[in-house]
């Protein structure tokens, strides 16, 4: 009996192992519910519970102290301009004569154009040669404009503000995340069932992207009533990426897992 029990136990154990092995492999192969690995070189940033206070630095002091004087000067200029608008007067008769002379000149020009159109074949060949010269000049101009366009594009890239892209990964416990940059209104990001499914399978969602000011600033991230502040030093010539692991979101914003990296433009 005991030998039979041992055999049964061994068989049962082997069966369990046979089932457990593929299941564990499946678990290994299954995407984790935690966030994806951030890009190499990314730094983990920590959120604060309160927005950092800005430095007490004053700007535009002369304007603030002399605002009344400058606005008074602006009002005086506007008043002077308005009073310069006079009442309407009758049209000078010379203008009417000039108009008639202009119409007569146009008519004479039109008739001379008709005469020119009846020229011989030599005139036509001369015109063709001139056209070829004009085409060469246009090609030259097109090349110059192309170079100018390249120059303008380069200048545009330099003057373009830095951008920031907000990415989500990981299974989210909530369906709505709020993201508020300093210069924009709050953006409520809804996570529908399809998005949540994609996130739970290891996908990444681009939640927000926009231009940001090139300075140190704070962004507010809120989930289920918990609010955290992410402070970043935004470089003028870079694109910035922020990856939030939604599976880390809880009641303590200082424990949220957020990574940040930049790419030069």
């Amino acid at each position, binding site marked *: 009996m005991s030998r039979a029990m041992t055999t049964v136990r061994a068989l049962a154990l082997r069966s369990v192992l046979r089932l457990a092995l593929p299941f564990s492999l499946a678990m290994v192969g299954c995407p984790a519910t935690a966030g994806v690995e951030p890009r190499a070189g990314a730094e983990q940033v920590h959120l604060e519970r309160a927005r950092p206070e800005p430095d007490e630095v004053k700007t*535009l002091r002369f304007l603030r102290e002399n605002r009344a004087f400058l606005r008074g000067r602006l009002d005086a200029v506007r008043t002077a301009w308005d009073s310069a608008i006079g009442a309407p007067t009758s049209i000078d008769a010379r203008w009417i004569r000039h108009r008639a002379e202009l119409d007569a000149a146009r008519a004479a020009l039109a008739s001379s154009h008709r005469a020119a159109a009846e020229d011989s074949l030599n005139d036509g060949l001369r015109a063709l040669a001139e056209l070829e010269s004009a085409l060469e000049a246009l090609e030259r101009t097109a090349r110059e404009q192309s170079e100018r366009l390249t120059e303008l594009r380069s200048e545009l890239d330099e003057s373009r503000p830095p951008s920031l892209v907000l990415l989500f990964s990981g299974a989210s416990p909530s369906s709505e995340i709020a993201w508020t940059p300093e210069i924009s209104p709050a953006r409520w990001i809804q996570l529908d069932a399809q998005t949540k499914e994609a996130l739970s399978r290891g996908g990444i969602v681009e939640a927000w992207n926009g231009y940001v000011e090139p300075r140190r600033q704070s962004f507010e991230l809120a989930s289920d009533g918990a609010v955290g502040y992410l402070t970043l030093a935004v470089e003028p010539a870079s694109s910035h990426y922020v990856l939030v692991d939604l599976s880390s979101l809880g009641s303590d914003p200082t424990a949220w897992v957020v990574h940040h990296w930049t790419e030069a433009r």
Partner: protein
Amino acid sequence: MVKRCRPLRGEHGRVVSVLLLFVWAVLPRESAATEPIAARSALPLAEKAARAWAPDATLLYLENDEALAPDGRAERWGFLYHSALLARSRAYSVEAGRIAVAEDCDLRFQSAPISSTWIDSEAALAKVRGEETQLVEQTPAHMLLVRGPLDDREPDRTSWLLVFPQPDGTSRFVVFDATSGEVRRRWNG
């Protein structure tokens, strides 16, 4: 019995002190002051910030936010932008390579946008001194650039206003056309 550490004395103590002093002397220190810059040098960063804030932001006004150096440069310049789309104004204070202040502004100062071509602060001060020789040795307390309220005859001109404090407590005001490079008005007040 507790073994106590003996303080360094004699030759060893002197050597260590000299080494510590040497290390302290060569360590780089963070400088509190930044390099003075001309107004135009601060402009690109302010423009970038303003474009991020509002696509239609236009520059209405600028002034020195820190004391001017004798050559017309300053450590920090303030810029005032207005957006018709947002119906708001925003101020930026820029020092060398960094935006020190960015804040919404409720000043309600709406002059015409500053012209895109204007003479920089250094050149403006040099030209003013060229015409006002009594100001050669003086440094203005304020330099501000604005379009409209400074010249009655040509209100559409973008102009610098330079304010030179005088020993008697008054100030010498000079309006300088930032496009043509001419002194347009002078008065004491």
